[in-house]
């Protein structure tokens, strides 16, 4: 069952790399968070702990509902053009993603050589998601992509935590989720400010602080 959900996450991650418009990116992020919610639910049923259910519910609320809608109406308010501004065209991005996945699997083989396939797969997927998050932040022009990249990395680490260790201590999870939410809100506010001051949100044109 988990393998099926893990492939779901991988698909949504690769989709994020390919999309060229802002709403598409947010939609893919919402899809990825949904799959992540399902994986967490699956773990919760297997380990029968109340805490994980609450964490899954919180994840659903924060990452599937609140943050994407906040980002969407923010984008509508800024009325900036929808193109993402790619440094690497989608094809090259995909090739890079494959390379990142290979890297993640080599990294995981160093540590989890002997463990069962499910845990190994989860480890590889989570590291790949983190690397793709990093990739999006580095190779896209818009400010929004950097926020989404950050959130994708959070998702990756959340998956890593719940996959290989069965979830972090309860309060820590709650604190992290709350913190991610606050981080998204504040970066959103700054993106709004950039648009007000610079009338665009192309981050690669923000280069007057040099040397």
């Amino acid at each position: 069952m988990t393998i099926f959900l893990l492939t779901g996450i991988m698909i949504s991650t690769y989709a994020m790399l390919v999309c060229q418009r802002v709403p598409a990116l947010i939609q893919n992020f919402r899809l990825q968070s949904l799959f992540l919610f399902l994986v967490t639910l699956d773990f919760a049923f297997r380990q029968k702990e109340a805490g994980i259910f609450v964490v899954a519910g919180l994840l659903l609320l924060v990452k599937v509902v609140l943050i994407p809608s906040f980002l969407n109406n923010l984008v509508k308010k800024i009325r900036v053009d929808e193109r993402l501004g790619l440094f690497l065209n989608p094809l090259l991005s995909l090739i890079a993603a494959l390379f990142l996945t290979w890297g993640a699997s080599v990294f995981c083989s160093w540590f989890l050589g002997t463990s069962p396939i499910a845990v190994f797969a989860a480890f590889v997927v989570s590291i790949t998601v983190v690397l793709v998050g990093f990739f999006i932040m580095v190779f896209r022009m818009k400010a929004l992509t950097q926020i989404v990249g950050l959130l994708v990395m959070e998702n990756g680490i959340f998956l890593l935590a719940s996959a290989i260790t069965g979830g972090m201590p309860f309060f820590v999870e709650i604190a992290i989720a709350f913190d991610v939410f606050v981080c998204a809100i504040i970066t959103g506010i700054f993106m709004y400010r950039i648009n007000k001051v610079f009338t665009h949100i192309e981050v690669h044109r923000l280069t007057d602080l040099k040397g």
Partner: protein
Amino acid sequence: MLLFWVVIIPVLAVALSAVLPARSRGAANLAAHGAVFVLAAALACRITSGTGVVVFGGVLRADALSAFFVLLISLVNLAALAYSRPYLREDIRAGALSPGQARGYDILFNVFAATMLVVPLLDNLGHMWVAVELTTLASAFLVGFYNTKASVEAAWKYVIICSVGITLALLGTVLVYYAVAAQTAVKTLDWSVIMSRASGLNPRLLSVAFLFILVGYGTKAGLAPMHTWLPDAHSQALTPVSALLSGVLLKTSLYAIIRFAMITNKAMGADFTSRLFIFFGLFSVAVAGIFLLAQKDFKRLLAYSSIEHVGIIVFALGVGTPLAVFGSMFHALNHAVTKSLVFFAAGNAVKKYKTHHLHMIHGLIQALPFTAAAALVGLLSLVGMPPFGIFMSKLMILSACFQKGLYAPAALLLFFLAVVFGALMFHLSASIFGNKPKGIEFGKEAWSMKLVFVSLILLLVLLGVMMPTPLQALLVSASRLIAGEGL
């Protein structure tokens, strides 16, 4: 009980500053932070004389190391607050700042101070991670306070780069958590628990986890190649805030690195971490030295000098002998005091000359004699001239390095420090001395600002000439925690 109040008072201060009118808000803030400083000192005395550990409700825990950092943070908070009162009053009178913005500043300042105070006291590594993330978010608004192009850009870069760094740190924390869970079947992130079981952990997994921690929290601490956000953020922020950023915020993330280093050292011996620390320390001092030579902006110059001093502290941690760790803690204190003094002086100068550029700022000693004197004292202390503290801590670190036989790193460090000395003297002696430009007329600072300068200078000279015994006891017990017996 002490710990509870140390954390709660700043939160109360946040609430108060949201409510009180301008006049009484200043006094309330000063009282709050003064109280926090006194409590921190009491905590330190309790720990050095008493049991060595103070715990509150399973969440807060303070040993010698965290007590020292709390003391350091509360000291610089107090100084920054005392300075920001007259600094903002001038801005308000000049119309650059509306009273509403001043209230916003006070709220944000207190939130920032609260989050920083809580970091050293949290026992759980996950909570510590959240607290460090909150410090970034709280200070982001302070960096981007003036709504100009440069400050918004600096704030954006600050938030994004630090969040990426901290996410990597979270990855490292999760790996540590996994190592603990896999080895000892105890699913906990409490530092004290992990520390007691640290010897059995899988060394290779821990080393990779420490790499993520070092790069993650290192981004926040301003270690080179991850330091790129630091000059932008510190030069665009408000002066008291950049003093806080340089003086203390870098050291809170250093505190996190030290916590993880203690676990790794216990698990697999100190050699792995010391090689990394020495490399990153020397690389930071080198990068800072070279960049200092090519600087044209007063505050960026001081930002790069912070990178250099963080490099020295990390280098000293790398040397690892009890004397070196004592020297690095002492250096952290000296640097915090010196850097806030120089930033305050720089703030006055930049406001007086209405420019950041060093070419336009000359003859400061004729325009603002008192600020120029403070800037000169700060500068000479930064480069390690005798009567001030940094000369002593630099001496300790270098002699520890020589005693351990690390001649090449010590020689490299001496060379880079000479480059830094040349760069700083080259830029600042031209701006402090000389004739002032015609447009600038002779100015006087508010007496409260003068009080802040004088107290910081006295503290510096005190630390340079003799070491107060309670502070020595605190530092000795902190270094015993990290590097074991021997001092």
